[in-house]
């Protein structure tokens, strides 16, 4: 039952997948709430009036690219390359932070124009769904930052660190998939 043995890895990967599936259900509930409330604009704006598709498309491209760099970080972890992992994780972090900054910009713009989450049922569910995804991204960035420091401080890439990089990659790809659904259901279907 040492940290490096196969059985240990199996249970950790399985457990993390189980967590991701439960998180998927959490987003499922938020998507359901959005589907129910999206028409309840209560005299406020509908999605087509406030969403800027080019801006969100930019956000999407940045997040997709960060998923790609997260994948490269995992590959570097399998090779045992400390430098590769650090480089690609840093790139992923930068892209993730840029995505989060853009989301914050959009939220601020909406709140400033009087279309905050308190405005209507539609905006409540919109802010909560997209904001929960943003909160996950922020948690992922925190995890990434801690991992970068831990790896940078260690002499070489230990199996434990490599596994964490790989699990973080799973988390990041999962958030990417959730975002694809947000992009489609909230933004594309909201504008069209």
């Amino acid at each position: 039952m040492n940290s490096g043995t196969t059985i240990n890895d199996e249970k950790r990967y399985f457990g993390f997948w189980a967590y991701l599936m439960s998180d998927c259900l959490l987003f499922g509930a938020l998507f359901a709430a959005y589907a129910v409330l999206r028409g309840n604009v209560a005299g406020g704006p509908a999605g087509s009036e406030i969403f800027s598709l080019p801006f969100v498309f930019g956000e999407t491209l940045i997040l997709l690219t960060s998923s790609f760099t997260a994948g490269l970080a995992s590959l570097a972890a399998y090779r045992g390359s400390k430098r590769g992992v650090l480089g690609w994780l840093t790139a992923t972090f930068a892209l993730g932070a840029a995505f989060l900054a853009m989301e914050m910009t959009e939220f601020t713009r909406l709140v400033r124009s009087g279309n905050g989450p308190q405005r209507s049922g539609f905006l409540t569910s919109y802010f909560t769904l997209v904001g929960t995804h943003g909160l996950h991204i922020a948690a992922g960035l925190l995890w990434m930052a801690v991992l970068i420091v831990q790896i940078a401080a260690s002499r070489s890439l230990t199996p434990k660190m490599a596994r964490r990089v790989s699990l973080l990659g799973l988390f990041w790809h999962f958030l990417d998939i959730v975002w694809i659904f947000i992009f489609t259901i909230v933004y594309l279907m909201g504008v069209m």
Partner: protein
Amino acid sequence: MFGNLTAAAFEHNWIVNAAVASMGLALVGVAALLTYLRRWRWLWREWLTTLDHKRIGVMYLVVAAVMLFKGGVDALMMRGQQAVAAGAAQGYLSANHYDQIFTAHGVTMIFFVAMPLVFGLFNLIIPLQIGSRDVAFPFLNAVSFWLFAAGAALFNASLAVGHFAATGWLAYPPLSELAYSPGVGVDYWIWCLQIAGIGSLLSGINFLATIITMRAPGMKLMKMPMFIWNALGTIVLVVFAFPVLTATLGMLFLDRFFSMHFFTAAAGGNAMMYVNLIWSWGHPEVYILVLPAFGIFSEVVSVFSEKKIFGYASMVAATAAITLLSFMVWLHHFFTMGAGADVNAFFGIATMVIAIPTGVKIFNWLFTMYKGRVHFTTPMYWFFGFVATFTLGGMAGVLMAVPAADFELHNSLFLVAHFHTMIVGGVLFGLFAGFTYWFPKFTGFKLDERLGKWAFWCWIVGFFLAFVPLYILGFMGATRRLDHYAASTGWQPLFIVAGIGAVIIAIGVLFQLAQIVVSILWRERYRDTTNGDPWNGRTLEWSVGTPVPVYNFAVIPNAAERDPLWEAKRRGCWPPKENPAYEDITLPRNSAVPVIIAALGFLFGFGIVWHIVWLALASAAGIVAALITRSCDNDTEYVISAAEVERMESQRMESRLQKP
């Protein structure tokens, strides 16, 4: 500085003051006893910081017992109020206080009694029954327990500081929205459930990984004991249902804290969505509670009939069917909401379909006893009581699954009687059977049989006296949650009978307490002299000695067939003749981090309930810091060498031989 917290939060009526005083006295008493016996260090080292699943299991049971007392007192207070508050008599509880009590009773019994009893037994039994040295994630396991304990503490704090929700145990909006429940009651409700619920979710993930990846060699899925199958169904439900609860509670919190509009009556909220969401967690929750009881009875009936379980494959199929179907029936909790005839018909039929796999189980248990050598022990008494009670309650359920009938019975006392029949007669009787059955495994002595049977008879007689009147009152038109009714209804005699039933149940609880105390005091008389196999058991937990060593199994067993211990005994190769080859065993070190995280979680909940923003933010930051510190800790395990294992095992053998 203190948000909404003012001196007014500490002003209560005399009943609450008495409760708070007794709670405070109990805490001071325990603290004084620990100081007198110089046991603080022992408590911290051996229990509070432990990552041993067996000890965590025991701590779950202790918290559940304390909360059962609280929930039971709530029940007696309600029965007392309804027995007297007819016509001119108003009873001794104000309407608002009564509302808080029925809310607290439901919350206590489901979240803080039934759930910890289930998770306590899972902790104690699952690793032993699958032949594993630990759960998949021991640290996470301790975090789960302590988050649950923090939720329970926050719930109890509402008694002393402020007040609890008066909304009913599921806090439907718009009543639970800020406009209609402006106090802190609903906030306490949200956060005690949120914190405990996250603990449950993490437990679910942990045990799912444990059962899937850590079974002994040879134990294929279809070789697993029935208890493990039922636990697996339970755990799958936890992992898929609890996130929905987390999300729903989160939405209600956003409505209340940030004036959002998920469920408000105005600005485009939709209260009916809440009812759908909460029950799409709530119905699976019913099966989260009852599946473990099914698992326990499968073990108990098989062992005490000295026969393998009848129809193993059909049992597995029935468990899987119940797991799946339990996600497809949530709407039967609100047929009257007006979803339309087609939708109601679908959910009504889906509900009735669940009776089929449940019936399969009942018949399988009965056929297991058929031509078996049945031992009439206390766990079997609970089983017989369960079969009668649960079948009756099940038939009441099928009746209410007819939407047309439900329009008459919805929110009546008939419903209250129905779900108590299921949860007391199903869940609680099952957990009592399991407690009695597995008690000697962890203590080395059995519970007194005579007192146990007296407790059983009080429970079963008291139960029917308390709840048959409620079925009748439901038909007479009595709705649930009444603190007062007109004398002309003619309900009072039945309410008095129900009150007498509750008192008889309370006497049963006293017998159970006496049973535990007597068995501990005169434990030599009840000593298990078989080295851990007092019931002639069939599964792996009975193959290790008592008390179970910290590493569970000195050598990981092989479990290539069902009932592996029974088969080994039958073939004459148990107990093993020669000494096995021992190996080094790696175990997790104790950690204070779970306790710290839970303490901060409690402060976080308290801060957010009272809008003390700095406290909430500081606690959240503290939790993150604790997790980061833990992630940097590379010294989390220790090794017991093979030689040390051999020494410990031979010592255990010697001490066993010296016993009378």
